[in-house]
């Protein structure tokens, strides 16, 4: 079964484009990364899937249920963590957790207690006085305490220190191993690369690439670092050329022979040819007029 399936999903805010013709498929049990810069349509996609906003066109199903007609059933099985968690004034953490569980008509006490322990969250603290990171922890517990089948996480690690990030992803991996689908929207490509099995890249409201993370990163391009002073003029396939103190660095896509001949004819002390990481690929996707590297 597919956890998320959208077909030509479109949302316009008046004349402004949110998402347009979005076709996305996330299999149940996947750890899926959703990558895109601000304004690309990530949050619009998530808010449409959760029924916070109505699509202008197209269709979407979450856990096999139509988002227009089965919203409540969907939300019963979904845990959502917004990019910035807001709660009602004057409440303590335990009140928020109890309210969230109560709205789901579920006793989540044991799971909530365990999550609070692992995330080192003080349930007696007032939410008004919490830091951004601690409010995020409250949001995480609210999203996870009812053991949802699908986790939709929007920029989940913002504000969390590295130790907490590690614990958070450890919890996510456990949930994923137990069968939950994780849909992780993030700017932080290293965490997508590290944790997700597949990812989708959204630009200007459209999905421009989707596949296994290693396939997305493996675009045939190579990151080349040269210690020396090669003359790269006339060598096709060189992009993103940076001049360093003692050499140059660039992305190269093309046959190896011309590159090696160019380097061999120049005073070169050292060469490193590596695969670019997802961050570099991502930046390329978002470069003006950029095509997959």
């Amino acid at each position, binding site marked *: 079964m597919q956890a998320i399936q959208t077909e030509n999903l479109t949302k316009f805010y008046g004349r402004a484009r949110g998402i347009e013709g979005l076709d996305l498929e996330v299999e149940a049990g996947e750890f899926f990364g959703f990558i895109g810069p601000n304004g690309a349509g990530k949050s619009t996609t998530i808010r449409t899937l959760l029924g916070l906003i109505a699509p202008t066109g197209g269709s979407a199903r979450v856990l096999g249920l139509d988002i227009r007609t089965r919203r*409540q*059933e969907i939300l019963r099985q979904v845990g959502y963590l*917004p990019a910035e*968690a*807001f*709660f*009602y004034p004057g409440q303590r953490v335990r009140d928020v957790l109890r*309210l969230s569980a109560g709205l*789901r008509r579920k006793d989540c006490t044991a799971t909530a207690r365990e999550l609070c322990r692992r995330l080192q969250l003080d349930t007696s603290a007032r939410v008004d006085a919490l830091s951004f990171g601690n409010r995020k922890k409250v949001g995480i517990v609210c999203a996870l305490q009812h053991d949802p089948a699908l986790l939709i996480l929007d920029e989940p690690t913002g504000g969390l220190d590295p130790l907490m990030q590690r614990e958070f992803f450890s919890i996510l991996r456990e949930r994923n191993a137990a069968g939950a689908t994780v849909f992780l929207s993030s700017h932080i490509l290293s965490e997508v690369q590290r944790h997700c099995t597949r990812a989708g890249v959204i630009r200007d409201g459209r999905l421009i690439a989707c596949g296994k993370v290693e396939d997305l990163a493996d675009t045939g391009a190579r990151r080349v670092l040269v210690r020396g002073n090669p003359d790269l003029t006339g060598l096709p396939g060189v992009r993103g050329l940076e001049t360093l103190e003692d050499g140059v660095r660039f992305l190269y896509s093309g046959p190896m022979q011309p590159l090696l001949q160019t380097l061999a004819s120049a005073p070169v002390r050292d060469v490193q040819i590596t695969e670019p990481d997802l961050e570099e690929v991502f930046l390329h996707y978002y470069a003006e007029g950029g095509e997959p590297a």
Partner: protein
Amino acid sequence: MTLFCHELRQGRLSLAVWTLCIGFFVLVCVLMYPEFEGQMEEMGAMFASMGGFTAAFGMDRLNIGTLTGFYAIECGSIIGLGGAFYAALTGISALAKEESGHTAEFLLTHPLSRGFAAGTKLAAVLVQVTVMDLACFGFGVLSVLLVDHPVPWGDLGLLHAAYLLLHLELAALCFGFSAFRHSSGLGIGLGLAVSLYFANLIANAAPAADWLNYITPFAYTDGADLLTEGGLDPALVLPGMAYGIAALVLGFLHYRRKDMR
């Protein structure tokens, strides 16, 4: 029930503050009555000779020298207008506060239908307004007992029933507006309450503006009409209830399909 109790908890401070303020001023007002009681004939004559102003406050038909007349005019303004502010603020913020406080994303990603969420919030608003009105009635009774007068249960009950209807109508109107708003509409709520209050004064003072009585709910809380007629005027109450219900229906229809910010 969880959401209902949550709404009541969120509104309890505001309810307590408004109720105590209104109740306090009702008490103070009635406690001053014995001091004025001896001079009421002169005051009544003075109030009766102020032309349009006299009519605007219904003092041409009410005897301010009696406790019920005094209560209807002096306390009526405090309870009617003060309660209207509370009802308007509670109603206008009920739905809009979720978006202005960015909590809509929290609330509406739980498995609740929009209709259920709005209906529960409406129920909480109506309960809070009713509690405020019942408490004010209690303060009214207490104040009369404190000045050693027999409690005019019938007149007092009628006046307070009218105030309750007024406040429920205003709360319903503002709740309906609230569904259309993304940010706090406190100014709109207060503005609506004040506008309707002044519409009633104008309708009472100027016969040409009599039609305003069919718009403003303050018309059916007019103490002079209530105490002389001995009951509410259905010709004024029914349109008011219809406005409130229409606002609620429109609000619900919109809220069910509204894009949340």
